[in-house]
């Protein structure tokens, strides 16, 4: 299965390619007053209104600032995902399309099912799903069901 990887600070993190709807070239968003701080704002993608989460703030780290390199991953909503995905994939996304503002795209990797390792016990994090080793790098696969639905859990994982 293919994963798209990107940077979270010095860590490589990945999401399944199948979960992505699109990565638009422009990453202009409109901030919304009163929205939780982790929400960068809204973008309009071909008429769809999409909420954008700041990956850095979601992890309680430094905010991802909009730059030439930063990108917004737009994820499929649950129904879009079900339409296209191979039936064997069990992935829960969100009811709405959600965007994730990341610092920098790293690339695309192909991962065999058996390469996915559980997160070591002492490193457990609500947004971590599993870990993959590629050459000298470890890539954390994100638990999209959590990170994309964080408005329901907000407060629980934030300082």
């Amino acid at each position, binding site marked *: 299965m293919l994963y*798209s990887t990107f940077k979270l600070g010095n860590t490589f993190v990945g999401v399944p390619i199948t979960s*992505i709807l699109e990565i638009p*070239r422009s990453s202009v968003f409109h901030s919304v007053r009163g929205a939780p701080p982790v929400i960068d704002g809204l973008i309009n993608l071909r008429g769809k209104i999409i909420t954008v989460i700041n990956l850095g703030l979601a992890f309680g780290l430094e905010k991802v600032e909009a730059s030439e390199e930063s990108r917004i991953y737009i994820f499929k909503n649950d129904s879009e995902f079900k339409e*296209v995905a191979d039936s064997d994939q069990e992935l829960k996304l969100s009811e709405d399309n959600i965007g994730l503002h990341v610092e920098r795209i790293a690339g*695309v990797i192909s991962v065999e099912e058996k390469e996915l390792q559980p997160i070591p016990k002492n490193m457990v994090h609500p947004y971590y799903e599993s870990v993959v080793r590629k050459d000298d790098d470890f890539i954390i696969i994100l638990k999209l069901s959590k990170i994309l639905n964080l408005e329901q859990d907000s407060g629980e994982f934030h300082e």
Partner: protein
Amino acid sequence: MSDIEEIRFNVYNPVVTYEHRAAYDEIMSNLQEISPICNQGKCKALEVTDDPQKQKQINDLMEQVEFFSKSLSGTTKMFFDQLYRAKENSAESISDSTAHIKIEMIERNLLERTCDVRWWALEKAFYECISLANESTAAANADKAKEAGDKPARKRGNSSALDSAVTFACRRLEDIRKSYTLYRDLVIVSLDGKVIANSNEERRSEILGLDVSQEDWFRGALNTKDGTDYYVQDVTSSSLENVDSLIYSTALRKDGNEQGEVIGAMGILFDFQGESEIILNDYLPLDEDGYVQDGYLSFFTNSEGIVISSSDENFIARGVRADIPRANSYLADGGDTKISIGIVCGKSSVIVSKRSEGFDEYRGLGWISHLVLPYSSMFQRSDSSLDSDISTQELVNSNLIPEKNKLTYQEIERKKKEIQLISINGIVLATDLGNAGKSFMPIFDQITHTGDSVRGRMESLLSEMSSDMLVQNFKALENFSKQAVDLIDRNLFERAADVRWWSTDHAFWEALQNPSEENLDQASKRLGIINASYTMYRDLVIADSGGSIVATSKAENKDRLQRINVSEHSWFRQGKQISDSVDFAVQDVCDSELENEKTSLIYCGGILENGERKGASKGVLGIFFDWENIALPILDGCLPRLANNVVEGGAAFYVNDQSMVIASTDVENFPVGSKFDGGGENVTLEPGDTASGLFTQNGRRYILGSSKTKGYREYGGLGWTAHVVRAIV
């Protein structure tokens, strides 16, 4: 990038190295593969899906990829062109400044020669001797006219007076030559063109009595308008020497009066060959055995394009026209420069020619300094490995890399990212098509791979270029620092010569041995005349053996100086020890009460009893060098420049042997009096060594070139080092 430049360095240009051509070919063939791949992708889209919206999305992506890969080939061409242009610019600017250094070195030297001859012509021993010689000639002519039979008894007495005057004049000329070692000979000539006295004992028997009345330098001297005027005869043959001579001359005038009647001439024969050999061989790269590398030549031509001195006479012969492009032989007055590419001695070369601007009041003789280097050397990779003190990233971001090249690189980086993004979106689309989409995967893989490899190649080219730039900058700064230290040493060599010679002046020892008001006034007057002839002294003073100032070149300083006793001053204490006229002493740059605590550099010589060459000290002559006004313009001329503007954060300064800054073009960051400890090995150099490196000052990163004095001729220097620096951020 909107400004479209003509591509000068494409891969077919022979200067492009094999490695670069290979890299270019690889990038281009990668990019050329993209088009067929995209066509393949468009066809596949029709095969794998019936959904017209999906087909269009795939089509759009493919077109975007094609667009970016085409534009990336254009940018790549530009990048290579800029890479070579940057190398060319930087090599040209170094060569240009080297040619300039050489001509300036010689012109500064010659300015001193014009000062010398005018000053020496006022010497009593010379005009008295020539007066006697002229009288004797006149008497002989009168006798001849009267008839041969009548033996003139009175001529005997006159003749012995003349003999002793000649002996004394020869002695004084020898004194000069001992103080100023730059001369092969000095002569004084009677009105009818006969050499009466000379300085070079070895050649005396051949020279005395020689008729030079037809030589230009002699006629020119007789035509000078007053004591401030001089004549110079460009390098040419003279009956005085077997080698070509460069002769400065002026008239000897009645009673040494600047406006007086012309009674003869003085000619000084500068060691042009010796001096130009030093200058021409400097700044040329040496091979392992210490010989100048093949293809590097340096020579001077005169205003007619004839070679007057050459670093290698096997290739560029003296006395004939140099085989260089015509445009390089005829340059306009006022420091005109010409850089050409052509064949010199069978080698494709760069020829950099710089016409003299003269120096200060000296207008020069229209000489041109030429520097020849192999054309290929401009584009050679620098072989020295990169200094570990600086990372590639810091270097690439530094201002050593021209802004244009950085922008082009960023453009490549941006395009690469666009391609990457398109590719990921393509993979997303293909994945959505399930199994059918799998056939798209290799296409997007290939596209991603191409983007990455192009960028990787460019990145290594940029880092290669950065390290080349760093090495070239190091070299340029080293050259500048060497120039700075050479120029000041040459200047101080002259000061050391001046003070030794002046200390022997009869007015000074007479005043000290018989300090009547009249004699002291006479001494002050002499000091005043000296100071008026030379531009580099603030004042000249005479201290008696008790350390009281008894004479000064500036009447306005008299009252103030008379109240100061200098017996505890370093220059005076050293000067008091001198008992030989070839010795001098110096007080390194420091604040002195003599000059209202201004920074002073004081040279001194011993005034010896009866003006003997060796003898008891009667007092000390101190000369106050106009330190800042001489040092700062030299440093200023050695600052790193781009297109005639000093580079941002460029500075030059001298430090003494304690690493204390003694003159600085940037008193904010490198203040006078502060200790300079940047640059590791650059502060602990051996005499004559140069070094380069990096340091941080006031939180700013700099690169620097440093050069420690090796002295000049017999002047040993004061252990100073010149540092020329450039901020890189």
